[in-house]
């Protein structure tokens, strides 16, 4: 309990603005990525029967994804700190490594096992590639 409190006090001393900005950026990217202008149609098509039927479900998912982005930014920021990386390039490399290990690799087998189309895999992990690389670069540059 004590160590948790100390850890919390420790985290609270860091600047919060980059974290919030990174999460907001990821969220806006998601809204853009899954918008009708970009990948809404192929995404819904590759989902097939599993496409969300109601509009409010998609809105709820969009709202909830912000909290997910906050968590992702929070963890990515720790990894950026641990690597001691500063600057856009090193942050982007950290984001790329995190994506390859924690998004692309584990999801590949799972998507094949669940019989999901390869297009869906590329749309979903492509979003995370761009999101993680950009926010990694941002978090390393603005600490």
């Amino acid at each position, binding site marked *: 309990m004590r160590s948790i409190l*100390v*850890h919390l*006090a420790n985290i609270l001393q860091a600047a919060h603005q980059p974290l919030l900005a990174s999460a907001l950026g990821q969220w806006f990217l998601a809204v853009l990525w899954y918008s009708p202008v970009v990948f809404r149609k192929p995404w819904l098509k590759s989902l097939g029967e599993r496409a969300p039927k109601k509009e409010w479900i998609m809105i709820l998912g969009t709202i909830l994804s912000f909290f997910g982005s906050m968590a992702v930014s929070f963890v990515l920021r720790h990894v950026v700190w*641990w690597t*001691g990386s500063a600057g856009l390039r090193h942050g982007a490399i950290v984001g790329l490594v995190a994506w390859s290990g924690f998004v692309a*690799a584990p999801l590949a087998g799972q998507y*094949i*096992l669940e019989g999901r189309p390869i297009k869906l895999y590329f749309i979903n992990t492509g979003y995370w590639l761009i999101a993680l690389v950009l926010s990694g670069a941002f978090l390393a540059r603005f600490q």
Partner: protein
Amino acid sequence: MHHLHFNHYAILVAALFQWFLGALWYSLLFNKPWMALTGHTKAEKPKGMVLSMVTSFIGGLILAFVLAHVIIWSPPVAGALSSALSAGWALWPLRCSQRRCTSSGRCSCSPSTPATGWFVSLAPAFCWPFGNDLRLYWSDGPRLRRGRRSRYNRLTGEAAPRRRAFVRQ
């Protein structure tokens, strides 16, 4: 730390463990709910089983490799724990000193005696230097950034490095 210095057997064992966990998870443990949720039926022949097993093993290898990096990057748990414990004494006045219960059965706990109150008001002042110490510890040394003094440089008074270098000690 170079890639070649990792314990390759450990990475292989981790990947194998992930693979076996996946096999167990989707066959014995959660096969029925998984089939119901993904819309598969028992009658149909499973497609892409071999491919998914091969892919998930390679994926497990990549994941274990990246995870080994993150573990190397992260601060040692023992050091972090000992720093946390040494800083924890500052939170001692927050302990419950008086527990009052009313006749209705409601109990409240407050560190409200004068002596502890004095301590409580000063607790942030005790915590602050330790927090900075931990933050520095977590930040893994000086920030390698050109031009601007980092938090580490500000707090320790060290000069900022002139050249950016990405060299792992």
